[in-house]
């Protein structure tokens, strides 16, 4: 169990950026994604930038593409839903039985997909390239109260231990004959109960343990000292200005045409 969360130790460009710059960047991606949610085409440059950031952050473009590929099911579902909603607008591209896919429907579908995908990738890049220590520091600097900053990094920390727990639990239950790929949809959901229940129990126990340890080390006792304080550099200013230009530009573009 660690406060390491998604952090990957690397010496990349992204790692060297000030955490405040990265937090601002991730928020800008979120804003841009919200403004482009009805037009997937305009979200593409944002997507390209988040993929670039992800590969720069140490998680690698490979993993990023893996995430996207796995999200393709999500994309398909989103496409179906939003295509249906907008099936009466725009030029008809495809008609499959009751499904009518128009160009407007397709753009909205991609817009909605990127609405979720881009911020997820951006925050993943943020967490992969920033030590929780520095995240906490940045949040405090940006005005979040000490306890909030701590809680936030706590939540991040419990992720890898939960992942590990799921692996162990699955191994134990499969050894008892659990077959995850048996049966229809409802049955398959039920199949996961033997994994989810122990996993939740483990999560609760981990939260308890973590709280005890942090309390014993006096987390939240006073205004926290940070021995390692990042220094804002020219590079950070340049990066932030570029981000403002890029995402501000995309937002303005999509809002102007909207």
């Amino acid at each position, binding site marked *: 169990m660690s406060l390491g969360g998604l952090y990957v130790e690397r010496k990349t460009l992204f790692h060297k950026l000030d955490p405040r710059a990265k937090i601002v960047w991730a928020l800008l991606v979120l804003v841009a994604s919200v403004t482009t949610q009805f037009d997937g085409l305009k979200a593409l440059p944002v997507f390209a930038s988040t993929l670039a950031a992800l590969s720069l952050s140490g998680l690698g473009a490979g993993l990023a593409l893996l995430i996207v590929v796995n999200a393709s099911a999500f994309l398909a579902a989103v496409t179906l839903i939003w295509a249906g909603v907008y099936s009466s607008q725009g030029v008809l591209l495809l008609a499959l039985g009751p499904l009518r896919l128009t160009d407007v429907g397709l753009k909205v579908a991609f817009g909605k997909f990127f609405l979720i995908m881009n911020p997820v990738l951006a925050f993943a890049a943020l967490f992969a390239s920033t030590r929780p220590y520095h995240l906490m520091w940045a949040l405090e600097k940006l005005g979040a109260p000490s306890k909030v900053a701590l809680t936030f990094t706590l939540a991040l920390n419990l992720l890898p231990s939960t992942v590990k*727990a799921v692996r*162990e*639990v699955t*191994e*134990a*239950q*499969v*050894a*008892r*004959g*659990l*077959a995850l790929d048996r049966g229809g949809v409802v049955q398959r959901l039920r199949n996961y*109960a*033997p994994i*989810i*229940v*122990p996993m939740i*129990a*483990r999560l609760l*126990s981990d939260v308890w343990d973590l709280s005890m340890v942090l309390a014993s080390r006096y987390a939240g006792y006073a205004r926290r000292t940070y021995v390692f304080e990042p220094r804002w550099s020219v590079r950070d200013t340049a990066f932030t200005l570029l981000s403002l230009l890029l995402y501000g530009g995309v937002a303005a573009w999509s809002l102007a045409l909207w």
Partner: protein
Amino acid sequence: MIKLEGVRFRYPNGPEAIKGVTLSVEDGEFVGVIGHSGAGKTTLAKLIAGLLKPSGGRVLVDGMDTRVTPASVLARKVGYVFQNPETMLFSATLLDEVAFALRNFGYPPAEIEGRVRAALEKVDLQKPLNASPHVLSFGEKRRLAIACILAMDPSVVVLDEPTTGLDYARCLSLFNTLSKLNKEGKTVIVITHDTDLLARFANRVIVVEEGVIARDGPAGEVLSDIDFLRAHGFTPTQLQVLASKLKAPAPTASAVSETLARAWRLS
């Protein structure tokens, strides 16, 4: 009867955890497995139980190669009890918990309740079948986990550090239960750090070190060899030191006191 022939194992993206192990465990043995963390004890135990398949060599359980034998068949031969019982308990009742594996492996429903009762009795868990597993103490959860494995009546039971988190009285009662199972004909393989308990209950001790077997012999002999134990990083217990100095047959209180008594009577 379990045979390991030149078994090697490598975790995906990892170094070789088991580097060529050949050994056999006969029916009815009570084997203790000791070794430091990371030595490969758990990996070896899982290979024996067929939960992991060897990357090289083979594991034969009663003549069947674990790589090609289905899990349902293996589970009836070798049961593996995981270290942390809380990793597996999820049901609403004891009956459901113990019956889980039985139902998965297709046992006839008429047989299930009988097997559950028998298993719970073997571990001395005197609670009604509709009791919830979640209100049990840690020691009771341990016993429940063992009962889940015993329900399939395997002839070999492998336990991974079953004494962690248990106090002395419960450790003793657990080993007494294992001893009882052993006397009923089951083969017992236990991974543990508690060498005094092994000296008392096991008849064979295997020392695993960095993926290979460093020593394999009668429990009394291996555990009295304090030079060997010290050289391999183990801390000899008082009984082991005394047994070694007195050349007692085993590092147990009864053997050591017997040896001393005899020496004093003669003098």
